[in-house]
């Protein structure tokens, strides 16, 4: 088994683990962690695709590598937005929960902003 295939299998396992955490972990912060884990597993799949595209004197295909770099930056931005939402929720309610009861309280209008 080549190290590329091994990395691909690790990637597959990470996707499974991350997906489990994303669905089964109730805390939002743990969901964000799981999302990052799943993302990095997917990047590893790009990684082995790149490695198996070694040609023209390159050890790996540069196109998927560039996509992973773009993807890592986007994943960070997503984490930052999610963390900001969780912290805001915590500051306002003293809890950081996605429990639906938190927002299905009786309405006071919904007249839009202002």
């Amino acid at each position, binding site marked *: 088994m080549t190290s590329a295939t091994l990395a691909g299998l690790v990637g597959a396992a990470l996707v499974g683990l991350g997906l489990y955490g994303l669905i089964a972990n109730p805390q939002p912060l743990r969901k964000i962690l799981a999302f990052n884990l799943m993302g990095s597993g997917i990047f590893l799949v790009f990684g082995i695709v790149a490695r198996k595209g070694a040609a023209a004197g390159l050890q790996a295909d540069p196109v998927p590598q560039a*996509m992973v770099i773009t993807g890592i930056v986007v994943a960070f931005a997503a984490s930052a937005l999610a963390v900001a939402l969780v912290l805001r929720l915590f500051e306002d309610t003293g809890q950081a929960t996605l429990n639906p009861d938190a927002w299905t309280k009786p309405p006071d209008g919904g007249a839009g902003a202002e």
Partner: protein
Amino acid sequence: MSVLQALDIGLAFLVFAVAAWTIFAPGAFAATVGYVVYGLLLSLVWIRLFAVDVALTEAAIGSGVTGVLLIGAAARLRAAETAGREKSLSGLSRLLVAVLCVLVALALAGVVLLLPDQGPSLAPQSMQHLPETGLGNPVTAVLIAYRAFDTMLEKVVLVLAVVGVWSLAADRYWGGAPGEARAQRPEPTLAFLAQILAPLGILVGIHVFWVGADAPGGAFQGGAILAAMWIIVMMARLTEAPQTKAFWLRLALVAGPVVFLAAGVAGAIFAGGFFAYPPGFAKPAILFIEAFMVLSIAVTLPMLVAGPPRREPRR
């Protein structure tokens, strides 16, 4: 089995074990620390895949800056872990979810094993057009020439993320500064570290950006290292985050994408197509754009870590 193979297998197990810890650890803080360790191990995997540019990005952004962000959040949310009782899934649905996830992972593993050893590749085409760009690093060429459109729009994503994070401020704090105020007496140990590390880090960051044209490195990685330096200096409370209404801050945030976009439009006028570079001037044009991207990344990442404004704006 060679030594290298044994090390690969060991690394694979270690990555998997730490990943499992971040999912199943009892406390959120411990899980987050696990995630940072995991990110560093992952950059070793990327080196084994001969993707050094990715390894640098993963270490700097995926593990480093994301780690600071998540650990900071976990520390502040510690109170919530004891305060709020979460509704967790029942045992049966947990089992169903686990089965689903195992199936997805197995299907993916099967497809990965079926991929041919010599897969289709754009490496030859990337190398063929490399001389037109004047660059030596094909990954940088993909990011900044062949797929420049992706990269420019991804910078716009970062700007939108900043707007989104800032939008969570209270109305009265809009325009003010995020994070904590500059301390009268900064934490001495951290201040010491920041004072020694920051100048070195700035040099390293610029170096990584500069060599990125021809060797592993580039605007993302260099910018992320510079960003980390600013974050350390802010953490040591040697300086405070700027006011979000400051024009220079806004200018630094959008400079990268604006210059990139303008260069793309200039390409349509002078080089025959949006985001095309005039022959012979490609390399200086690329370095010019990248310099502004480094600036924007170095400012954007710390602003995303710092969170929404928390203090009233000063006049």
